[in-house]
């Protein structure tokens, strides 16, 4: 049994025990079966399980940011935080990221792969139903995934399933996914917020317009950009969902969010304005969750375009950035400094022994000189819609780089149209990436030589070779070694400066309880606060 798997089982056990679906005795039996000693298992029970005691009932009101009047139910075009929060509440996925950031079951109960990792079998939950009472079967799962495949698909995650050749049913409750190459991380990919399970129509398409799903709560009323009311779905196949009702209220303005929470209009908000975080923490009725995540800020430069085609210029820019000051002043401490490889410390296979590159203007000037330049004038584009404070960060970086003789001119681009006109179009820009569960997924979409989102146009033969090898490798130790080398390559040769990984910072009233661990996948416990949290009093 691999360590990875062991950890998953342990987490699954703790989760089940916490939600009350397992007695202490059962817990100990299963833990020992998973290779734990009696004392270790018993210690785990007292420390992790009994501390949390969920209570049933109540109406949980969540103030959500980034929720728009133009948001729809089409899973292919999910993009806003509002849609992500709602989709995890009224809909469901094959697999889920657990509060401990492992991989757990949702609509699929177990999964396995052939040794080359090119054929995957998912067993589906047999007791799951949609909100209108229909049973969830293989047919629905296949239609749901096919929504993101094929010529006419308008899905934003079409490219994630590019290597899928066919999806077949094996009986009513099993699906088999065939790929044209090994893909060890496929079960992780299934947690992507676009891949919701929806009822299939007879023609093999899905019924997404109605807002029906198989998630823990069903929609009673929904007004895009204003709010959504939901009640508990009695046929939900899993444990949890302690609240009777859920209400999402759109609160796009940071001040509206914080005052709504302080005055008790809502019980939880999905994002805290970092400038006022410290002031908010002084309020005794409010608890702030500050959760490190894999969501990176990247500053990609076109490595096939002067002056960025010179690796010394890239190194100069990497030495000229004071990451600690950026974390301190832009994120008010709620971020982890990066080291120019896109694997956060919380991700599987994250290297631990690479020493972070320091801020060193002299070194930067040295590399600049080595590149044959006495000074450097470049523009850096950003917009505050990407991250509040993005433009400020570029201003600060510009001040830091001045000491090395580098003149960075920050350019504030329009919020509107940033992704279509600036990103991938201008040579040096500010980007924020949502967390991806594994290094493979991150590298494949944004660093692979032919990836459409290879934002730095980086071409490194060794890196791409390793990426393909690691993708199909099921041995954890070997994979870890490969990712280590790839991180080192990205750090020293790549065209992306990664200043930091941003935390999720959200807040709740103190009468809302949650487990000891919360997932770092999205705001509010991986967008699953509705079924994981409870009223403590």
């Amino acid at each position, binding site marked *: 049994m691999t360590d990875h798997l062991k950890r998953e089982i342990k987490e699954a056990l703790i989760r089940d025990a916490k939600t009350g679906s397992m007695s202490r005795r059962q817990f100990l039996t299963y833990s020992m079966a998973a290779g734990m000693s009696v004392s270790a298992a018993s210690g785990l029970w007292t420390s992790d399980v009994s501390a949390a005691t969920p209570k049933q009932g109540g109406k949980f009101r969540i103030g959500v940011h980034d929720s728009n009047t133009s948001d729809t139910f089409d899973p292919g075009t999910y993009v806003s935080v509002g849609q992500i929060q709602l989709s995890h509440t009224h809909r469901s996925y094959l697999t889920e990221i657990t509060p401990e950031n492992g991989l757990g079951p949702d609509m699929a109960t177990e999964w396995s792969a052939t040794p080359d990792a090119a054929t995957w079998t998912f067993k589906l939950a047999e007791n799951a139903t949609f909100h209108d009472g229909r049973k969830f079967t293989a047919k629905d799962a296949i239609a749901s995934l096919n929504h993101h495949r094929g010529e006419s698909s308008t899905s934003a995650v079409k490219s994630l399933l590019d290597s899928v050749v066919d999806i077949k049913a094996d009986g009513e409750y099993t699906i088999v996914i065939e790929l044209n190459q090994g893909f060890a991380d496929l079960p992780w990919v299934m947690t992507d917020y676009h891949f919701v399970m929806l009822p299939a129509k007879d023609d093999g398409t899905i019924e997404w317009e109605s807002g029906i799903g198989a998630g823990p709560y069903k929609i009673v009323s929904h007004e895009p950009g204003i709010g959504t009311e939901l009640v508990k779905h009695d046929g939900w196949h899993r444990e949890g969902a302690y609240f009777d009702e859920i209400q999402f209220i759109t609160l796009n303005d940071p001040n509206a969010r914080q005052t709504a929470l302080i005055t008790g209009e809502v019980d939880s908000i999905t994002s805290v304005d970092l400038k006022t975080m410290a002031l908010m923490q002084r309020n005794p009725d409010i608890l702030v969750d500050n959760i490190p995540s894999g969501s990176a800020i990247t500053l990609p430069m076109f490595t096939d375009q002067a002056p960025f085609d010179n690796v010394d210029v890239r190194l100069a820019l990497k030495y000229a950035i004071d990451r600690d000051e950026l974390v301190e002043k832009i994120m008010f401490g709620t971020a982890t400094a990066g080291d120019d490889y896109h694997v956060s410390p919380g991700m599987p296979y994250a290297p631990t022994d690479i020493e972070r590159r320091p801020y060193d203007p002299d070194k930067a000037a040295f590399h600049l000189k080595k590149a044959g330049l006495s000074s450097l004038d470049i523009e850096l584009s950003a917009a505050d819609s990407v991250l509040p404070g993005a433009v400020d960060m570029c*201003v*600060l970086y510009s*001040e830091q780089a001045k000491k090395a003789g580098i003149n960075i001119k920050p350019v504030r681009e*329009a919020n509107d149209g940033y992704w279509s006109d600036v990103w991938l179009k201008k040579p040096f820009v500010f980007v924020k990436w949502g967390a991806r569960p594994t290094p493979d997924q991150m590298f494949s979409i944004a660093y692979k030589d032919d990836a459409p989102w290879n934002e730095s146009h980086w071409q490194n033969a060794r890196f791409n070779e390793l990426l393909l090898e690691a993708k199909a490798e099921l041995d954890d130790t070997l994979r870890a070694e490969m990712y280590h080398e790839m991180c080192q390559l990205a750090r020293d040769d790549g065209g992306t400066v990664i200043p930091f990984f941003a935390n999720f910072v959200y807040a709740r009233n103190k009468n809302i309880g949650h487990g000891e661990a919360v997932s770092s996948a999205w705001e509010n416990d991986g967008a699953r606060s509705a079924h994981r949290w409870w009223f403590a009093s």
Partner: protein
Amino acid sequence: MEFLHGWMPAFMVLATIAGVLLAAVAMSWLFRALLVWVLPGEGSKVMRSAPLTASFGLFVIILYALAGIFAPWVAPYGESEVIASSFAPADDKMLLGADQLGRDMFSRVIFGARNTVGIALIATSLAFLMGATAGLIAATRGGWMDQILGRFADVIMSIPSLIFSLLLLSIFGTSAFVLIVIIAVIYAPRVFRLTRAVSGDVVVMDYIEAARLRGEGLWYLIRKEILPNSKAPLIAEFGLEFCFVFLLIAGLSFLGLGIQPPTADWGSMVRDNATLISFGEITPLIPAAAISLLTVAVNFVVDWMLYRSSGLKD
């Protein structure tokens, strides 16, 4: 004495306000005396009769103008120079403390005077030049000219200004030049309408009729007869529109379309730290106060000019 305790803060606030007012009055008085002494002949006479409010307004405007023109020499630090930690409190080096990036707030307010007031002044003047000219022509000429100009103004005004500028700035990019032109285009029709309405009232007066019969030309009518008789509301409007421009820029920065960083402008400075106000922190109040003070000052002077032009003696 216990019951007095609760009233102490209120008393302190009142005392501070009274102190500030007293200081303002004294300063205005001194400034007026100075002007009377310094200015030659006519100017001196005019200033002698000026109310204290007008002298206060003039004082503030001149102070802002000096700060704006000589910003690089007046400000202790550079516009974008990072010298402290975020929101560092005020000390003897930093008069107003630091902003969110640790830049000196006082220096940024001074540079803001240059950028914000400069842009607002140019844009408003341009708007008035276009709007008032068109309005006067429309009123004097009448007929189809009046119709065309009027409908054209209607079209521009009918599109809400924030949306209109959002569309235009997204299309043309956000340089200071584009910003000025767009603001001028948005405000010109408002000036046009007002000019048209006011001078429309004047045009039907008997003395205009008389001048027309005398065979006076269009420009003569506008310059000598209509403008002098309709300039009061226009001056009042200028004072207000000028200040609205700051707010439009602040609103645009709300939509991510403001002035380019690290240029300091008051509207964006309010916006950047606005949420702090909910916890009683005064950081965003400083640039807001800079805007308010100028608005009040400009309009005090406008009042005085209105009063003088109305010919009232009481």
